């Protein structure tokens, strides 16, 4: 009961946060001097076309009225139409979000699969060559510009070895010959669910390079955090006790010690997850991934306010949601934390 009360409380709080964010974005994007009508009508409009657009977009009305229109539509789930592309923001966001989300899930999975064991090994063999090597890898992973690393990977795996595709989510021709029924928008999942293995393999090939590029930063982060916590935890009495019981080393590290050491790493995974949602812009550009970062950057550059607000809502909601999930997992892992 208390659990659900807590979740409900957090969700209500989330609505307040998102609402506040929307208001701030709305006001700032309208105060900046620009002319949405000019963006709406295309490159060489007539005076009449601009006049018509101003009426269509309610630009002649006072700001509070425009805000009322916007919120009124928003409550009904209508995010409006992009000023720049005339497409529905909601459907644009849906496709962009699923593209990015799929990429990040794979990237974070890679990060956890590599980062956690690397962190544990480094802690266990503190100051050995393994530890030093993983330190170098982690520090360079955190400090390398991701897009540059992406280009290097393209050079190696596409240009020289020719074993992985250059860019995009899936090959044009593969998709044409094996049409994919879109269920969730995640190509890997959809193709598996519909038994479309041609698209599945192709999508998998396409996601490896961008996902690995994106995972380099969290790998570094997770490795360092798991290592430092593990080093502390391994000094604790209970570890000495289980060791005295003669449990296998592997079990001590991964079952008993890691459980207490992983919390901070988990939080940073969660936060980097939400951050990457729009922060992966350059990686998306290099791999032509039609994601949220690219969408957000285009929207901001052209002052396309319905699109900007839409992106903000999605990111804020994800942030709040991921935070909640991370908190709940922590509660589950650590009985000392009380809701």
């Amino acid at each position, binding site marked *: 009961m208390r659990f659900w009360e807590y979740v409900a409380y957090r969700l209500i709080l989330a609505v307040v946060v998102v609402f506040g964010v929307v208001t701030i974005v709305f006001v700032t994007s309208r105060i900046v001097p620009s002319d949405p009508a000019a963006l709406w009508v295309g490159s060489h409009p007539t005076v009449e076309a601009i006049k018509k657009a101003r009426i269509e977009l309610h630009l002649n009305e006072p700001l509070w009225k425009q805000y009322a229109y916007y919120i009124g539509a928003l409550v009904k789930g209508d995010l409006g139409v992009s000023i720049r592309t005339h*497409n529905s923001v909601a459907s644009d966001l849906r496709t962009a979000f699923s593209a990015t989300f799929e990429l990040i899930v794979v990237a974070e999975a890679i990060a956890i699969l590599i980062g956690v064991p690397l962190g544990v090994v480094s802690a266990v063999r503190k100051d050995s060559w393994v530890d030093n090597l993983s330190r170098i890898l982690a520090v360079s992973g955190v400090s390398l510009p991701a897009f540059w690393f992406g280009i290097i990977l393209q050079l190696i795996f596409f240009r020289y070895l020719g074993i992985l595709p250059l860019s995009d989510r899936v*090959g044009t021709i593969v998709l*044409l010959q094996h049409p994919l029924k879109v269920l969730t928008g995640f190509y890997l999942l959809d193709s598996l669910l519909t038994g479309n293995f041609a698209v599945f393999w192709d999508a998998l090939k396409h996601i490896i390079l961008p996902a690995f590029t994106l995972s380099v930063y969290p790998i570094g982060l997770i490795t360092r955090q798991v290592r430092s916590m593990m080093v502390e935890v391994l000094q604790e009495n209970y570890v000495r006790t289980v060791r005295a019981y003669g449990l296998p080393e592997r079990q001590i590290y991964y079952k008993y010690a890691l459980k207490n050491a992983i919390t901070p790493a988990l939080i940073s995974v969660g936060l980097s997850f939400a951050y990457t949602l729009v922060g992966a812009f350059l990686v998306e550009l290099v791999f032509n991934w039609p994601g949220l970062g690219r969408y957000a950057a285009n929207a901001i550059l052209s002052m396309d306010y319905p699109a900007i607000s839409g992106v903000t809502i999605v990111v804020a909601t994800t942030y709040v949601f991921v935070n909640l999930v991370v908190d709940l997992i922590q509660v589950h892992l650590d009985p000392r934390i009380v809701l």
Partner: protein
Amino acid sequence: MKGSVRFLLVGVFILGMFWGVAVAGNPNVAIYAYNSEMITLDPSTEFSNSVVVLANLYECLVKYTPSGLKPWLAVSWEALNGGKEWVFHLRRGVKFHSGNEMTAKDVKWSVERTIKMGGGAAFIWDPVKKVEVVDRYTVKFVLKYAANLPLIASAGYGAYIMDSKTLSEIGDNKAIAKYLNKGHEAGSGPYTLVKYNPKTEIIMKKFNDYWGGWKKGQIDIAVVKVVPDASLREQMVISGQAQITRDLPIDDIPKLEDNKKVTIKRSLSYQELYGMLNTQKKPLNNKLVRKALSYATPYEKILKYILHDYGVVANGPIPKGMFGYFQDMKGYSYDISKAKQLLSKAGYAKGGIKLLLTYMQGDSSEKKVAEILKAEWKKIGVDLEIKAMNWEQQWALAKSDPSKAQDVLVFYWWPTYATPYDFLFNMFHSEKTINFNLCYYRNPNFDKLIDEAVALEGTDVKKSSALYRKAEEILLDDAPAIFFYSPDAIYVVNRGVKGFKANPGYTQVVFFYQLFKR
């Protein structure tokens, strides 16, 4: 565990390579890697990037080419009543993608719909009073005033002929627009729409019943792929992942000339870069100062350093290759001492002029032009402040009170359809409300000349041309703008594809029907 991951990856690679091979022997595919996403798909209102798709799905009555107007859906046309009426004879046996035959009714319906919706480039039809169906294959346009209607009917925006039977069944104009923008079309062009994903790719398939017929080696599947990153587009065309692209960094082009995998196709672009001078504000309201700035601009140097000579220096307001461009007209050239002379005559012998220049953020050639001007104009005592703005902001400032607006506005112009009137009217004709006359130039004599010239364009080319020339010479003398250059349109084409030819009348369009693959 690590071993099993590696095993899985190797498996994936091997399978993937199989698929790569399996696809290679199949239909002829051409991919055009394009830098920007699509906007709308309604031929009546679309006035932006999506023409790269529309021009392959739909056709106009007339096709523009640099060597003159050519038949397209109309096989011939004639003017009556001194260009106030035009009759078009339609091609017979043209089928729309639905199987319906294209007739005079479709022409009337399409043009009237575009006029009625009044969006995008609908203004091109402004001269039209009514459209009459004479018989099944003849259509007559009755005009309010004389105009070059065949040229208008060749426009890349707003002049496409649609299948009226299919579309009128959908509902009213709004319902049709909604239907089309969802990824449908109703054209007669060589390709039909298979998949429309405005943010990533647009896939088209050849239309078997196309009136032009098909030859072996032509493209079966035409793809426009949205790839915003220029270096990625370059990689794609070199490696054959795409066949054609454009808008690569100009600094990369000389290097690509030596690349054996691609060919560089350059053509005139009908685009020109202008520096609009504020004729309503001190000190540029003085003609002598404007002339001095025109002389203090190093045209050849700009062309060389910014465009690597991929373009031509402008000699006036109309870009090279178009009707209304005169090879022998003398424009300005770089002459610092003359500029100094003019300035001292205007009372600025000691310089002391401060000017503000705006240009569009993110446009690297405009930025470099601005920087060169700053350095060069310093030599004649002009202190130039340069400011990058996004276009909507730049334009909003320019449309505010001219006495408080910028002094110099750098921007490109290109025509909606290839008439000099589009340039001269939009940028230099007197305006009640400021729109694109961003030098705020007012000259009734000039207005009269170009208004007369455009009326004669379709019927008396010689006289029209002479009137345009007179108007352009007035502009050169009044110097309301600096005419920098006209850049080439540069397409990079993979050697696997033949037959590509850019048509400056249809900006950025690749007509896939021209292409052949071995």
